[in-house]
C-alpha cells in the first residue's frame, strides 16, 4: 500500500493485496482506480467500493490498486476506474496520464473494461479545447472532443443504455461532442448529457465507457456494475463470468424511483 493511498470507505483492510494461496475463489480481479486523490470527487470512489464489494459477492477476489502520479501501473490490470476532479486536480494528473498513456491504450485495445467519469472521461477523449481556444491533447481512447464553456451543466439524469435505465447526477462545464463513428454510452431521457443538444450521454468503445454521471453511477445501477465485472472476470480468468444471484431490490427501488420521478 502506498502512503499516498486514500481510504476507500467500507473497504476491508488488505484489499490491495493478492489473495492468500487457496483463497482466490473464482479468481482474482485486479482493479485500478486512477488518481484517487486528484480525480474522485462527488463520491466517485463509491464506484470502486461498489465494484470491489460486488466482485466479492460474486465469488471472486478483488485486488484494489490505487494509481498515483509518478507510480507504475501494476503488472496485472483487469478493470480500470477514474473519476471527476476539480480543474486543479485535472492539471496535476495530465503529465502522468501521458506517461502511462501507451499502457492504457494497449489495455483498452485488449478488451480491459474501463469506466471513466466526468474529468477522466474528458481526458480519455481526443482533446479538451479551453474557452480561450487552446487545445489540450487527451489519450484518444474515446473519439470525443470537449469544449470548455462558461455554462455548467448540473442536475439529475436518466439515460437509456444497452444495460437498461441508468440514473445519476451530472456536474460539468465541458461540452462534449462525439466523433463520426463514436457510439454514446446512452440516450438522455432527463438531463443534459454530453452537450445538452444532441441527446447523447457519454461514449462507449468496446469495453471502455466514459460518462458524466456521478451519483456515484454504479451502486444505483448494478446492471452496469455487473457488466464491467463480467468483462473483467473473463479478462482475468480466461473463463466466462460465473455470477451469483444477488439481491438488488434496494438498488432497484433507488433507481426506479428516480426514473419515475424525473420522467413524470
Amino acid at each position, binding site marked *: 500500500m502506498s502512503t499516498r493511498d*486514500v*481510504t476507500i*470507505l*467500507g473497504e476491508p483492510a488488505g484489499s490491495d493485496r493478492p489473495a492468500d494461496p487457496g483463497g482466490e475463489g473464482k479468481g482474482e480481479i485486479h482493479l485500478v482506480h486512477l488518481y484517487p*486523490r*486528484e480525480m474522485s*470527487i*462527488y*463520491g*466517485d*470512489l*463509491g464506484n470502486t*467500493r*461498489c465494484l470491489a*464489494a460486488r466482485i466479492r459477492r460474486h465469488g471472486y477476489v478483488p485486488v484494489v490498486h490505487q494509481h498515483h502520479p509518478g507510480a507504475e501501473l501494476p503488472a496485472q490490470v483487469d478493470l480500470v476506474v477514474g473519476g471527476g476532479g*476539480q*480543474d*486543479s*486536480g485535472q492539471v*496535476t494528473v495530465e503529465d502522468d496520464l501521458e506517461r502511462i498513456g501507451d499502457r492504457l491504450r494497449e489495455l483498452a485495445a485488449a478488451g480491459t473494461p474501463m469506466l471513466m467519469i466526468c474529468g477522466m472521461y474528458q481526458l480519455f477523449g481526443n482533446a479538451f479545447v479551453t474557452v480561450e481556444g487552446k487545445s489540450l491533447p487527451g489519450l484518444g481512447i474515446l473519439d470525443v472532443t470537449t469544449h470548455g464553456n462558461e455554462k*455548467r451543466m*448540473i*442536475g*439529475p439524469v436518466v439515460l437509456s443504455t444497452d444495460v437498461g435505465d441508468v440514473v445519476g*447526477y451530472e*456536474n460539468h*462545464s465541458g461540452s462534449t461532442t462525439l466523433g463520426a463513428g463514436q457510439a454514446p454510452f446512452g440516450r438522455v431521457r432527463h438531463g443534459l448529457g454530453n452537450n445538452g443538444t444532441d441527446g447523447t450521454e457519454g461514449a462507449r468503445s468496446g469495453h471502455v465507457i466514459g460518462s458524466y454521471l*456521478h*451519483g*456515484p453511477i454504479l*451502486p*444505483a445501477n448494478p446492471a452496469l456494475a455487473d457488466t464491467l465485472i463480467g468483462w473483467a472476470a473473463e479478462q482475468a480468468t480466461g473463463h466466462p463470468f460465473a455470477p451469483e444471484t444477488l439481491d438488488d431490490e*434496494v*438498488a432497484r*427501488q*433507488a433507481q426506479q*424511483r428516480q426514473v419515475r*420521478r424525473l420522467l413524470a
Partner: protein
Amino acid sequence: MLRTTAAVIAGKAARTAARVRGGGTGGSALPGLVAEKVDPGFLAHALRDVPQVVVVSGTNGKTTTTKMLVALLRAHGRTVFTNPTGSNFTRGVISAMLAELPLRGRLHADLAVLELDEAHALHFARAVAPTHALLLNVARDQLDRFAEIDHTAGLLTELAGMTTDGVVLNRDDPYVNRIAGGLRDGVAVRWFGLDAAIHDRLGELAEHDAREQDDFEAPPAGAEDGLLEPVDESAMGIRWGAADDAERLGPVTLRQRGLAAMINATAATTTARMLLGAAFEDAAAERALRTVAPPFGRGEVIDADGQPLELVLVKNPAGFTVALGTYGSTPVASMIAINDDYADGRDVSWLYDVDFSELRAKGVALTSGVRGWDMALRLQYDDVPVGGTETDLGAALGQFLAEHAEEPKRIFCTYTAMLALRRMLAERYDVPEMGTEVEEGAP
C-alpha cells in the same frame, strides 16, 4: 422623505405582511428584498454607526459559531445585532434589521455579528466592508450553487481581502490557511485550531475532497491564537498559543457534544478575544460557553413522550462524518432522512464520502425522505442493517415514534427534511418555534 426611511417603511410593511401570511418571524428574505430595492445603500447606511461589523463565513459550523460568538460578546455587556439562526443570505440580514431599526434607518449596537454563506458574504462586503471576518472552513457543500471547492475558497479569500481590521482563520484548513497571504496591509490575523496533542483527530473534521491539499503546513501559533484541548465528549479548554507556559481558558462543558462544537467554540472565543481586547474576561467567556444552547436541528433535543429525540442536521460529508463520530459513542434508535431539494444539495453522491460503519452495531431503524432508498443502498455497502425504508416523512416519523416509544431516539436529516420533521413534531410535542429562541449568554 429620506430614501432610507422609505426603504425602512417599505421593508417593515413587507415584514408585517409576511408575518400576517404566516411567513415566519422576520427571517424571511422578502422584506429585505423590498428594502434593498427602495434603497440599494440600505445596508451601508444602517450599519454606519456600528463600530465593529463581523462576518462569520465558511461551509460548516456558521450557525453554531455565530450563536456562540454573540453569547460571548453579550456576556461582556456588549449590545450585538445578529441575523436569526440560519438566515445566512444578505436579504435575511436586512429583514432581521428591519425589526430593530428606527425609521431614520441607523442601527444602534456595539457590534453586528452576521452569519453569511460564502457568496452572500462577498455580496455583503461589497456593500459594507466588514471590520472583522471569522472564516471557518471550506468544504464541499451545495455544489449546485458554487460548483467547485476552489471557487468557494476564492470567495472567502476575496472577502478576507476586503476586511479592514482583523481576520480569524482556521489553521488546520488548507484553503482557509492560505487566505492569510492576501490581506490588506495592517490587517491583524488570529488563528484557531486543534492543539498538537489531538492532531490525529483532524481527519474527523477534514474535508474529504481536500485530500490533494494535504501537503500544507499549519502556521505557528502565538499567544493570541486559540488551540482546542478537548477533555471529554463535551468538556474542553482553550490554550492561548503553543508555548509550554501558555495561558488557558476553561475547562468548560458545552451543551453540545463533539469535536465540531468544540472547534466552533474555539473559533468564537478566539474571535471574541480579538474583538474585546483587554476587556475580555475568562469568567464571562466561560459562563457564555457553558450556557449557549445548540441552534435548532444541531443536536437539538425534543422531549418525545418522556424520551429524548435528537434532531441532527447533516448537509455534507464532513458534517455527517463529524455527527456520526459525535453520536456513535451512544448508539440509540436511529432514522436517517435524505431529501434532495436545492437547500439539501441536489446531488446525493456525497453520501459515499461518509463512513457509516459507526452505525453498524445498532443498525438504522428506518431510512426516509425522497432519497430514502439511496440512503438504504449506501448503508448496505457499509454493512449497516436497515430496518426499513419509507420515503414519506410523515409515515416514517409515525412508524419510528411508535416502534421505538420506550427508548431514546435520533434522526439524522438534511435541511428540508428537518424543516418538515420539525413541523410534524411540533404538532405532537413542545418544540420551540424556529428563529424565536430566547437570548442566551446575557449577563
